[in-house]
């Protein structure tokens, strides 16, 4: 009887959390749209959206600079609404993985992910699920985060000078094809770094981008680097992120009934994939953790007086999103020390690219969680060194460039650390 009661309570709590999350995401989207229309004239908004959608947008294309702050918010809100629709229609769950993928696309919708390049990839993943006869709701992560490679559609459509019909058709077709190949590749590439890189889709998108660029270069197509960064909306961007992170904390506390007892247990986890905090501790604790990480990110930006623009705030949001599936304040600190140390020695905290490497370097948090602080600091240091080297391989088509770099760092570092551990253990046993 007690077991039945427990089951009923769990089911009720799950339904309450699911409905609350739908309402939260919906309110978030409509607030952004409302704010955009209250602060920007409709004509300007549509012109801004046009510029965001119909332009090459590989790294680094700051949508706030290209389309304006209001249009960027509308772009973000529309992507969230499409994702909610897909989750609802496919009867998908709202696990930590899915929450992470939603807020990752929110972050990247500041600098590269738009509805234009998001939809073909979504369609491609859907077609793959039909061909493989897999339930689409098992592939939502790939459907949402596959948009990492979205700028390839924009570049083919608007960067090659193919004309509107051919360019648009080919760009969209390539997007669909990329969506179809993302799922099978992402599964295999997970083994490469054994789950120690939280941005596995970034690694997958990097490989796809690398192959695509290699093919383009066979046809003598050169891809020019872009660096369009906004410097006029710092206050709005900071306030947006601050409100978002505070809303995570308040929403989390609301879902958890203002009880944080489980948070200490979460802080002791290694964070390696697949650590789904929503499944293990519930949505409340997960949102709370996301908010804390987001505020830590903002605090860091203030501490080092970093440039504030779309990519930097997008990175901060994405970094916090992964606090639903593995990151927490204790396992990211060694990484932040390592990445900051590398920046202090060899780079500058005033460089957007370096700040992104520091914020995204946290994706190696499972290394620190599993092997300790020293390993985490080393991983962070290596990450900053590798990230700049891999960008030219995909010419900026992979928005999750840091995920690509982290895959190599984890694949290089983890077997070596494990080997050292084995040697140490065998010596200790022999003694």
């Amino acid at each position, binding site marked *: 009887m007690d077991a039945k009661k427990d089951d009923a309570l769990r089911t009720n709590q799950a339904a309450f959390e699911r409905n609350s999350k739908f309402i939260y995401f919906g309110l978030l989207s409509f607030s952004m749209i409302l704010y955009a229309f209250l602060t920007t004239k409709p004509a300007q908004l549509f012109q801004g959206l046009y510029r965001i959608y119909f332009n090459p947008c590989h790294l680094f294309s700051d949508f706030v600079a290209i389309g304006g702050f209001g249009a960027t918010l509308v772009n973000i809100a529309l992507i969230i609404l499409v994702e909610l629709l897909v989750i609802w229609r496919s009867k998908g769950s709202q696990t930590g993985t899915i929450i992470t993928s939603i807020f990752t696309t929110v972050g990247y919708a500041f600098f590269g992910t738009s509805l234009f390049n998001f939809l073909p990839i979504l369609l491609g993943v859907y077609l793959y699920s039909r061909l493989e006869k897999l339930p689409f709701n098992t592939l*939502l992560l790939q459907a949402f985060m596959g948009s990492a490679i979205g700028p390839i559609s924009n570049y083919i459509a608007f960067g090659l000078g193919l004309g509107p019909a051919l360019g648009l058709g080919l760009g969209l077709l390539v997007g669909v094809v990329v969506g179809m190949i993302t799922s099978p590749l992402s*599964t295999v590439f997970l083994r490469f770094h054994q789950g120690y890189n939280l941005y596995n889709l970034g690694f997958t998108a990097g490989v796809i981008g690398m192959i695509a660029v290699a093919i383009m270069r066979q046809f003598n197509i050169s891809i020019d680097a872009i660096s369009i960064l906004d410097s006029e909306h710092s206050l709005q961007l900071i306030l947006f992120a601050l409100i978002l992170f505070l809303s995570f904390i308040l929403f989390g506390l609301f879902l958890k009934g203002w009880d944080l007892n489980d948070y200490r247990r979460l802080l002791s986890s290694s964070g390696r994939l697949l650590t789904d905090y929503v499944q293990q501790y519930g949505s409340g604790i997960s949102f709370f953790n996301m908010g804390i990480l987001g505020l830590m990110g903002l605090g860091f930006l203030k501490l080092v007086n970093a440039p504030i623009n779309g990519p930097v705030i997008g990175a901060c949001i994405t970094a916090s999103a992964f606090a639903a599936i593995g990151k927490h304040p204790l396992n990211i600190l060694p990484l932040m020390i390592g990445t900051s140390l590398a920046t202090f020695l060899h780079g500058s905290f005033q460089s957007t690219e370096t700040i992104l490497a520091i914020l995204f370097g946290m994706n190696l948090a499972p290394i620190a969680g599993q092997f300790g602080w020293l390993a985490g600091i080393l991983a962070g240091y290596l990450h900053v060194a590798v990230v700049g080297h891999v960008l030219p391989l995909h010419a900026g088509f992979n928005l999750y460039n840091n995920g690509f770099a982290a895959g190599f760092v984890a694949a290089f570092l983890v077997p070596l650390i494990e080997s050292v551990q084995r040697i140490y253990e065998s010596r200790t046993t022999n003694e």
Partner: protein
Amino acid sequence: MNSREEQKTSNIVRALTLYYLHKKCPQTSITIIPSPPSYTVVVSGSVSLSPKELQEMTDHLNQPKIPEMEYYYDDLIVSDTIDNLFILLGAMVSKARVDYQDGLLRIELTH
């Protein structure tokens, strides 16, 4: 059984085998029961378990299935550490049963 389900079953068997080996089980028995569309893996052997370990294992194995786990993360279970193993297994199976009597641990997983 299609190749995906075969792979998944094989991964579950490998993960459980690793666990019993890690626990220094002197003899491990494995039974695989294909009954499409579901497949059951039963592994048993003598291991030493504390009540806390048993409770945690049972809780982790009985957590709700995670759809994304089915065809994406399932390969991770064969390379994962023991402490995260049952969380991953619980996320990819639809039914789990754990019995521990007189030192004999029997784990039955259906996916």
